[in-house]
């Protein structure tokens, strides 16, 4: 599995150059103190979007091994999506006000073109502290592989 590099991102056809998201989110990298499962050495990410990417955004590792992920607001996928953060997760995110937290889920494009979202383990970012974490809520009814669009 090859991580999606910025170069590949910029080479892909019909996609505008990636422009930063809202300045308050992208000015600095978001710190992920534990990395992401499988990418434990990636401790710092920037969130990028582009007009052509539509509802997708790109979570790209900086200052570490190369890795980038397509992410989407889970409520774009499932309007009633809701997960409960554990006390420990809230502490790790330094979250005082849960309303300001940014929730994203990782999107996978499978070989046959099926687009899925991992609703089981959302990425939660606290923009006030610029800390992020992929959480695995203990009581969570959502699947790791939620199909958004079937492949052709």
């Amino acid at each position, binding site marked *: *599995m*090859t*991580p*999606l*590099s910025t170069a*590949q*991102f910029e080479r*892909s*056809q*019909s*996609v505008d150059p990636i422009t930063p998201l809202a300045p308050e989110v992208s000015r600095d990298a978001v710190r992920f*103190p*534990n990395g*992401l*499962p*499988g*990418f434990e050495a990636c401790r710092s990410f920037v969130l990028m979007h582009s007009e*052509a*990417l*539509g*509802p*997708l955004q790109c979570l790209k590792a900086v200052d570490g091994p190369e*890795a*980038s*992920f*397509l992410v*989407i607001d889970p409520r*774009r*996928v499932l309007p009633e999506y809701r997960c409960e953060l554990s*006390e*420990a997760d809230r*502490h*790790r995110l330094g979250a005082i006000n849960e309303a300001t937290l940014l929730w994203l889920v*990782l*999107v*996978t*494009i*499978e070989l046959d073109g099926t*687009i899925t979202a*991992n609703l*089981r*383990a959302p990425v939660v970012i606290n923009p006030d502290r610029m800390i992020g974490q*992929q959480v*695995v809520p203990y009581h969570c009814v959502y699947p*790791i*592989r939620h199909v*958004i*669009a079937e492949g052709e």
Partner: protein
Amino acid sequence: MLVFTRRRRETIMIGDGISIEVLRIGRDGVRLGVVAPPDVAVHRKEIYDQIREANQKAASAPRDLGAVAERLKKHA
């Protein structure tokens, strides 16, 4: 690997901040209580492995991002 025999209500300490207590021993499983500092993530390994595998799949490059985005606009 360190191997311990523990009975119900007995605990294992790891370092000075992590403890694992045997709460209940049933026919189908052992119920454990874990106390750890808030910065230590505790996971069930099989779930963590599934998430790791899903993340590795998610990190592979799509062929045409523009087309993916177009399809998503219809679905999300």
